[in-house]
Each structure stands twice: as structure tokens, then as C-alpha cells.
């Protein structure tokens, strides 16, 4: 793997943000962090990530709104993985309806399996070889 894939993580919890950074850097990703949606908007344009990892419970903007906004920006084909602690089926359905590409529940997985799931997804989408 020569070029690192760019992953943009939108997560308001700094601890989790840091953990993601450790995991994904370990898994040979280039990690960009955004704590709020304003930062995210600018990052989306500047970084042009290969993948977005999104938390649903955000202080300024609801994750669903973020999802819809990303998908409404027509040029954006960036896949979005929702990684949240909300595990109710209604939340999951709502995320998929808002065009999430994959839904992961944080507490259900060890961090290694989260990285695995993301990799698996990217392989399916043929973004990762």
C-alpha cells in the first residue's frame, strides 16, 4: 500500500477522537479530525477524504443532519460510516435512510474489529485493494 487512504473523523469526544487516530494510523490511514461541523465543512473541501467516520450525537449539529448535508453536496461521493453508541433499531434505520453507507455500534466492537469492519467495507467498495 503506497498511498495512505485519507479518513476524516467527525467526533466530538476527544478521547474517542484520539483513539481513532491511534487505531487508524496503526492501520496505515491518514487521519483528519473534526470536532464540529464547521471544521468538517472546511476539511471536506481541503482534505477530500476517501472515507468519513461520523458520530451521530454532536453538540452543534445532529449527525443525521450532517449525513444529509454530505449527501446533498452532489459532488460528494465519499462513503460515510456511522459509528455511534446509539444501538436502537430506529436510530440505525434512520441513519440508513439518511444515506449512511455502514452503521457500526461502538460498544459492540473491540477497536480492532472496528478497523477490520472499515477495511472490509472499503474492500467491498473497491477503494482498498
Amino acid at each position: 500500500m503506497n498511498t495512505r487512504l485519507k479518513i476524516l473523523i467527525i467526533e466530538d469526544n476527544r478521547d474517542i477522537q484520539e483513539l481513532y487516530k491511534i487505531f487508524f494510523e496503526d492501520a496505515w490511514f491518514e487521519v483528519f479530525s473534526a470536532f464540529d461541523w464547521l471544521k468538517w465543512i472546511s476539511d471536506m473541501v481541503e482534505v477530500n477524504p476517501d472515507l468519513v467516520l461520523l458520530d451521530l450525537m454532536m453538540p452543534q449539529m445532529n449527525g443525521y443532519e450532517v449525513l444529509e448535508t454530505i449527501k446533498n453536496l452532489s459532488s460528494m461521493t465519499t462513503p460515510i460510516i456511522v459509528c455511534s453508541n446509539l444501538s436502537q433499531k430506529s436510530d440505525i434505520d434512520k441513519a440508513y435512510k439518511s444515506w449512511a453507507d455502514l452503521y457500526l455500534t461502538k460498544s459492540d466492537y473491540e477497536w480492532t474489529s472496528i478497523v477490520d469492519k472499515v477495511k472490509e467495507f472499503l474492500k467491498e467498495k473497491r477503494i482498498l485493494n
Partner: protein
Amino acid sequence: MKLKSKLIIPIFIIVALAILITWIIVYFTILTYTAGTWAISKELEQIANKVIILYALSAMSVFLPVYFSISISVRRVIEPLTRLKEVSEEIEKWNLQINMNEAWTQDEVGKVAGAFKKMVYKLRKVDEEIKEQVIKQTEEIVEQKEKIQSFNIELQKFKQAVQNASDYITILDSNMLTIYVNNSFKEDLWYSDKDVIGKNPFNSWRQEENYSRFKEIWEKLKNTKDPLTVECNTIKSDKSVFVSRVHITPILNDEDEIIYYLLVEHDVTKEKEIENVKNEFVSIASHELRTPMTVINWFVSVLLQEKFWNLTEEQKNYLFRIQENTTRLINIVNDMLNISRLESNKLELKSEEFDISELIIDIVWSFQILWKNKWLEVLCETFPLNIVSDKEKLRQVFINLTWNALKFTEKWSIKIILEKKEESFKVSIIDTWIGISKDNLSKLFTKFSQIDSALQRKVDWTWLWLAFSKLLIEKMWGSIWVESELWEWSTFWFSLPLMKVLNN
């Protein structure tokens, strides 16, 4: 005999007068004959005396037969007639107890008397019957009256109850027009009879935005005639709105036609608020509790990565323990959330067809390290059996029960038995652990029970698993129970319908 004595005196007087008159005539005749001289010869006097004696005798001879014939006729005709008159007078007075048993003659009067007797007898009978009937009917009337009285008391009670019930009670006629509302309805919603009687509640004090929904409800009621409960917004006379839960019961007549609708409703605004708060709490707990635990868990995982740094065995051991406990904590939170969701009917169930024996064997094998380490024997008596249920939920229940059995059994064996019974199946997990006392058995499936023995410290009992399993199984239309012999064994079993399509 009274009649006879009455007759004798006049007859006697008449006879005496006849003799006296005859005597006077005779003397006057003699007087005329002697031309007023009163010189009556002894010869004449003798003749006159003879005439008188003869006359008296003839009079006697006339009188006696007359007397006797009269007395006989009195006895034979007049007396019975008088008696009959008496009897008829008595009958007229409705004295039917008169005695008519004296001897009656065989003639016409006797026959009349006989007929009279029969009539009296019949009258007496009829009278008795009538009296009996009157008594019976009176008793019945009294009984009915008592019934009506007690019914009235009951009715009064019911009326009072309905009038003063804290629930709002409305009665609608078959056209859905209001015919009655109780006091609390009027008091709490500030309506008067005038405002509501004769009106359709769904056009007036129910919110109109729901009108089409009510139409559907009403169609359903008309078709099924079964009671149903709906929640709807109700408008008070000051235009404020509250949420009420309405239980509607159609009341049918003998021809199975709806004659009334009975609506019993109460304000559930508070309940709804509590429910919302609870759901919100579930959501917050799910996020706020699990996030820090996930953070702890993941950081520990990072520390445990040997490629990042070198750790001593002791350090690793402690980190493992932190991880183990946070994982347990996460699981407990998950179970609590699941129970809360199940209770608020938020846990979704799926239906799919699968082989239950495969599931059992799969799980038993996934636990093999555990039972092999303990030198336990696991016996599975299963056979291929296709069922329809929620596979994932059933897996969870079976894992919980098997985990319990494996974790606590120190010696010998565990037995898992699958049985098929007509339209259902049963899975039993028999362990040879120390068993559970009777007191603890009943507590086992309640949400926050713990087994209060010294063993509790030894075993790591996740009682929530059992409570959750019970809720799940019941939600899937099955049952779960435990049987145990203290110090010997325990059998946890659950049974479920073979083919049950689950929907929420």
C-alpha cells in the same frame, strides 16, 4: 220449627174466631126465631148446644187436617225453602262454610237443595283455589317488589359509581351521538350537558385533525364489535388539549346489534410524559454511559498492544482485569437497556426459519474452551428441527442459559435436551451445579434479584441475563422456568411455539 210455631197462633186465632162467630150467629138465629123474647125453650137451647158442639167438632175436624196438612207442607216445602233462602243469604255474604248436610227431601225442593249444595261445594272449592292463588300471587308480587327494590339499590350504586368515577365516562347511541356524560367529565373538561348531549364527540371535543383516524376506528368497531382502546387528543372547553386513553366498548342487544357505545377514558398526559422521559433516559444512558466505558475499554486495548510498548506480566494482568470489568459493565448496561426497550415495546423482533439444533450445537462448540478446561462433559440430545422465530434473540437466550450452566458447574456434566411437543418445542439445560433453594427459585427471573447465599460471592451471577431472557422468551410467546434440587442439580428450560411469525 220456628215457622210452625209462627203459623200455629194465627191458625188458632182464626179457628177460635170462627167458633165464636158461629156461636154468635147461632144465638142470633135463635134470637130471631124467638122474636126477641130471649125466652128460649129448653128444647131450642139443647138444639143450639148440639149445633154448636157439632159445629165445634166439624170445625175441629176441618182445622186439624188443615193444621196437619199445613204443618206438613211447612215442614216439607217452606222450611227447606227458608233454609235455602238462609243459605243463599249466607252465600251472598260469601260465607261458604255453611253446613248443608241436613236431610233434604226427595222432591223438587230437595233437588234444588242438592244443586245448591253442589254449587256451594264448587263455590267453596273455587274460593279456596282463588284464595290460594291470591296468596301465591301476593307472595310473587312481594318477591318481585323486593327484587325491584334491590335492583334499584344496585342501579343506584352503579349510577353513583358512574357519576362519580374519576374516569370520564361517555355513552353514545348507535349513531355516535352523546346521550350521557358523567360528573368528572363535566367538571374536569368544563362542559355542561347542553354542550355535549346530542353531539358527536369526534366533531366537537376530539381534535378534528384525527377525524379520518376515528372513522377507521369506528368502522373497525362496527365490524368486529370488539372493545378497543385508542389514544387521542381531547379538547377542554377552554381549548386546552390533553392526551386521553379511551376504552370503547360497543354494547349489543339480543340481536347482536350495537345499541350504545360506552367510552371510558382517562388523562394519560402525565403517563406519556413519564414514558417520554424514560425513553429519553434510555437514549441518554445508552450514549452517556457507554461512551466513557468504550473509551476506557479501548484505551486499555491500546495499552495491551505489545507492539506499542513492553508491559510486565503483572501490568498486563491488571489491564486485563480492567478490560474484563468494563466489558461486563457494558454488557450490564446493554442488558438494562434491552429490558427497558422490551418493556416499552421498543425491541424489534424478526422472524426467520432456521434449525434450532444447529444453533444449539454452534453455541456449545463456541464454549468448548470453557468446558474442556473444566473437564466437563456436555451431552447434547438434539435432532434437526426447523422453527420460525427470532434467531438472534434466541441465540442470546441460549447463550445466557448455557453460559450460566457452564460457568457454575465444576464437576461432572451438563446435558442439553431438545424436545418437540405438537406445536411447540422445549430446550432444557441441566447442570450438576449445587442447585437453587425454593425461595430463590421464584426470585430468579425478577429484574434485580440476587441469590442471597454465600455462593453468591463465589459465582459471577449476571441475574439481569435471566430477567432479560424471560422477557425475550415471553415476548416470543413462550415460557421459561427453572427447576432445581438444592445441592444436586438445576434445569433451566424454555419452550416456544414451533412456527410463530413475530411482529411488533
